[in-house]
């Protein structure tokens, strides 16, 4: 109980510190912008630690951060195997296949009004299907290994990429299209030199949304059958054996992987759409 009081004091102190940083000349500098969230994050971890120890919270309800960190360090081997299985094999391959497929279908839809009227509503329909309904079916079709997880990811990322790309391809001004006509440019020339570049901000919007969906899809799909490795597998079995520190370690790895994945796509976006008002 005694540790709860320092937790409260720490919270007030960190609050005061962050308010000072945000109000000072540091606020707009790079150091200032990094410092505020770092201070905030560390404070949350410290309070978590103090409250869990101070109130003697059961390890099953909430393990302390130091316990989780210990597990992270001890189980690096297992976590790496799980990460490879779920994130690298399942999520990334599904993401790449799903994005390429959605992008190609978007181009086909753009070329053919028939497909636009036929495929877009079906895409809508598929997007509305619950993942927990599709996942068991896909596991049934593609087996327990990562292939079925990639298939779930493909289904999940397909629609946001499709919709964003179709919308992006339509996002050119009449004047810009007229300009291409005065050059009597072909469909492909107009596509490559005008419409695809103009669509990129939209495409990247979809690509960013899809990063988080990919990880969620790959993890959840493992609940419905997987080999004895993988982040979703580990989470569901560790919950069963009450090894909550392991569950939290997997969650930490997921959060880190998701952030890095999102960050990587954002970097590419900045490089490709440097010209867009939101980037320059």
């Amino acid at each position, binding site marked *: 109980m005694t540790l709860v009081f320092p937790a409260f004091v720490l919270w007030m102190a960190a609050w005061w510190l962050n308010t000072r940083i945000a109000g000072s000349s540091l606020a707009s500098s790079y150091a200032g912008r990094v410092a505020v969230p770092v201070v905030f994050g560390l404070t949350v971890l410290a309070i978590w630690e103090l409250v869990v120890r101070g109130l003697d919270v059961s390890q099953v309800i909430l393990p302390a951060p130091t316990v989780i960190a210990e597990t992270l360090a001890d189980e690096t081997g297992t976590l790496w195997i799980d990460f490879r299985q779920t994130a690298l094999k399942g999520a990334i391959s599904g993401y790449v296949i799903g994005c390429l497929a959605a992008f190609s279908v978007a181009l086909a839809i753009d070329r053919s009004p028939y497909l636009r009227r036929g495929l877009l509503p079906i895409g809508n329909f598929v997007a509305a299907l619950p993942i927990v309904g599709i996942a068991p079916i896909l596991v049934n079709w593609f087996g327990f290994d990562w292939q079925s997880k990639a298939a779930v990811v493909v289904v999940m990322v397909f629609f946001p990429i499709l919709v964003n790309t179709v919308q992006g391809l339509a996002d050119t*001004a009449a*004047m*810009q299209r*007229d*300009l*291409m*006509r*005065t*050059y*009597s*440019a072909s469909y492909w*020339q107009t596509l490559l*030199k*005008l419409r695809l*570049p*103009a669509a990129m901000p939209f495409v990247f919007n979809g690509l960013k949304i899809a990063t988080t969906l990919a990880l969620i899809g790959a993890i959840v799909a493992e609940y419905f059958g997987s080999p004895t490795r993988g982040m979703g597998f580990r989470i569901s079995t560790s919950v069963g054996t009450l090894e909550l520190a392991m569950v939290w370690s997997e969650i930490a790895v997921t959060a880190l992987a998701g952030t890095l994945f999102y960050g990587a796509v954002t970097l590419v976006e900045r490089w490709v*759409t*440097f*010209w*867009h*008002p939101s980037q*320059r």
Partner: protein
Amino acid sequence: MSQAAVIEARNLDLTFETGDGSIQALRDVTLEIGKGEFVSFIGPSGCGKTTFLRVVAGLETPTGGEVRVNGTSPDEARRDRAYGYVFQEAGLYPWRTIAGNVRLPLEIMGYSRSEMADRVNRVLELVELSGFENKHPWQLSGGMQQRASIARALAFDADILLMDEPFGALDEIVRDHLNEQLLRLWDHTGKTIGFVTHSIPEAVYLSTRVVVMSPRPGRITDIIDNPLPRERPLDIRDTPEFLEIAQRIRKGLRAGHSYGD
């Protein structure tokens, strides 16, 4: 007008079908533009001046009458890349540099690499934008962007230049400067220019002929030959000859207006 006509319109009609009825954008427009002429189209909004230019460019299809460009249909002329078109907005692609934007039509038309570089340099020099090759459009002022868009239209050296209020959005000082430049460019290159404008002084200063149009339906109300010499310093705009032509255009515009309202 004795030279071979580059642009010929005969009894041109164009009616747009819209949700609430049809709009007659052009009625019975007959006009010949000879090689090397600078013809301005002036009139209030909705008089069909832009529509006429778009018909000549093959961007709109007339519902009646006939248009010939270089003796062929506008569509064929478009496919032959017979004209460069300058729009109201510069419309440069933000992901391309200035040089990249000027290169765009050349890439589409399949010029060789060295030819492209030559031409980009030449036309950027012509519009006084040398040194800005690697800038992006948003780093340039509106006037510079419009100059780049003119360079883009000049890059493939079409004999006809169609300009739809290219200086409409610019302030008067920049506009005067660009008018002077355009006149010099026309003198050097001998291109045939169709130029849509709202401004009477601009029309008189630039053209060899001024076509006055009026709305509802869009039609030609007067065609005025401009007797001013080809060499035109900016202060020619204060001479009695200049003011006399401006006066006649104003009268034509007013007459056309009272007709409709």
